[in-house]
């Protein structure tokens, strides 16, 4: 660690709560650059986007917006001599997204004449063989099933959520830019502070605070920049849009966000203990946090995310305004399902009906009973191993909704109201989370590889 203990301060600018999702606002970003941060960083991914992108390799974001965000970050970083760090490339953090970001950054370096720059790529996709080798020592994290050979066979793609060590290695190797695959959100912001010798617990907690950008502040204006500074025995968080403020309540509130335990944040190699954290207003828009503590674990465990294909998907949306039809919606849906069974057979496919206007959003967890609005919509999702079968099912649903038979009545002309006489074809096939487990590894580099090269 070349800079070692010389620097006792590290300022990290978060450009966007989600790189490339929609373009970030340049004004607050450049206001942040004017603070001369050590790092300009952004997280590009999340498990929130569901299993589809990981499993299928479809692109989550528009390439033009990813290009725009990456180019602006690069220009900002170079204008103040900061490093640039991006994690969980492309949403799911697949290797192909790291490659794409590398191409975009290389093009920007050449276009803007910013070279030579040392660019690190960190890949963290894991193969089926890797997963089989790590069955022993694996444990369920969120998934309620054990990791087995069968689950691995059903998995289309998997990634490891890396810890801070691969980022530290990239910094050791002189990286000006780091583009990484699936990573724990906090580590890409914590990497530089840890690298210069600041406290790991504080650095990771700071990372957790700023990884979603504006969400740590109030009001949480979207796509605005936020800066976190680790110094001495604490860190500060500050939004860069003049209408936004960080208050002890906003920062404390964000500590709860998206996690089960507000006092402990587990990660590869240990956890951040936030039991004795204090949040103090430095001004009406800056908060200083102290007391976060890193507790090392005995084993080094990383989260593995895996997604497997369920089948092709087709969609039909139909609606009813007739109160008698609305009253008999369950009968209508059952009638449609029977007709699908008659034609396609009783198994090997799935058909999900969600009745909007009644309980589509919560399903069986909605206890409002059969209360409905004066009109309803039904979303029917047909899933089958192949597109032809999914199409057959969807066409049966569409026709079935039209000839809807209910309460002894036949809809004479049309039956359901269709937004169009067609089966909808989303570009999403159906995927599911197969792996949401911890794998024990003997060293942090066992699940990833770091490659650094000079781009002229």
């Amino acid at each position, binding site marked *: 660690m070349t800079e070692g203990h010389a620097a006792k301060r590290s300022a990290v600018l978060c450009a966007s709560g989600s790189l490339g999702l929609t373009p970030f606002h340049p004004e607050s970003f450049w206001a942040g650059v004017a603070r001369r941060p050590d790092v300009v960083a952004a997280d590009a991914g999340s*498990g*929130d*986007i*569901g*299993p*589809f992108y990981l499993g299928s390799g479809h692109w989550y974001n528009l390439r033009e917006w990813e290009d725009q965000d990456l180019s602006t970050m690069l220009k900002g970083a170079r204008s103040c001599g900061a490093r640039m760090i991006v994690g969980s490339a492309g949403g799911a953090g697949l290797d192909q997204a790291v490659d794409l970001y590398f191409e975009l950054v290389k093009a920007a370096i050449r276009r803007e004449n910013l070279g030579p720059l040392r660019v690190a790529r960190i890949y963290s996709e894991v193969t089926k063989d890797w997963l089989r080798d790590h069955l022993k020592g694996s444990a369920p*994290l*969120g*998934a*309620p099933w054990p990791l087995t050979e069968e689950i691995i066979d059903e998995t289309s793609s998997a990634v490891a959520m890396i810890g801070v060590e691969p980022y530290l290695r990239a910094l050791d190797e002189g990286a000006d830019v780091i583009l990484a695959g699936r990573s724990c959100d906090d580590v890409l912001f914590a990497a530089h502070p840890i690298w210069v010798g600041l406290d790991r617990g504080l650095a990771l907690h700071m990372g957790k605070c700023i990884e979603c950008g504006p969400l740590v502040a109030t009001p949480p204006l979207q796509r605005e920049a936020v800066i976190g500074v680790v110094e001495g025995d604490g860190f500060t968080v500050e939004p860069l849009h003049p209408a936004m403020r960080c208050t002890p*309540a906003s920062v*404390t*509130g964000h*500590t*709860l*966000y*998206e*996690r*089960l*335990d*507000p*006092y402990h944040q587990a990660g590869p190699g240990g956890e951040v203990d936030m039991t004795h*954290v204090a*949040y103090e207003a430095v001004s009406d828009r800056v908060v200083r946090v102290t007391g976060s503590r890193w507790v090392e674990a005995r084993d080094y465990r990383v989260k593995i*995310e895996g997604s497997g294909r*369920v089948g092709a*998907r087709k969609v039909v949306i139909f609606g009813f305004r007739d109160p008698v039809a609305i009253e008999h919606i369950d009968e209508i849906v059952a009638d449609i399902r029977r007709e699908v069974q008659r034609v396609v057979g009783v198994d090997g496919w*799935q058909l*999900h009906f*969600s009745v909007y206007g009644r309980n*589509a*959003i*919560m*399903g*069986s*967890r*909605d*206890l*409002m009973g059969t209360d409905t609005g004066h009109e309803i919509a039904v*979303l029917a*999702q047909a*899933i089958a191993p192949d597109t032809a079968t999914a199409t057959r099912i969807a066409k049966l649903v569409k026709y079935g909704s039209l000839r809807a038979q209910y309460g002894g009545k036949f809809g004479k002309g049309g039956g359901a109201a269709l937004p169009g006489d067609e089966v909808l074809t989303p570009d999403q096939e*159906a*995927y*599911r*989370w197969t792996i*949401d487990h911890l794998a024990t590894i003997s060293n942090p580099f066992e699940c990833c590889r770091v490659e650094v090269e000079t781009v002229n």
Partner: protein
Amino acid sequence: MLPCGGRDSQLSKLSELAGGLSSKNAGNFHLTFDIVFDSTKTYRRVLDSGALTPEAVAACYGVDVSDVISIIAFEPGNAIKINMRRRLASGDPGETDVFGAQQYAPLLELEIP
């Protein structure tokens, strides 16, 4: 009468007491509900009422009490966190709320003495 609703005038609805109430995925298999209060006094009142139990939360959703994983008091934030298993893993076939963003609605009606 619904499991969470009622007409007793001595009771307040959680929606009347909480400054913020939200739901969100916590990982791909869990939901987390954050109930944030504007004052320590209200936070204390709700916590001390003993009304926020796993049984009461399970009743709001018609789920087994074992689906309610934990209820955590977070004093630094005047907040109470409720963790629950998801009905489906996020994005599973049949998903209609991939972020878990609207799952808090039944808690709004929960009655606090």
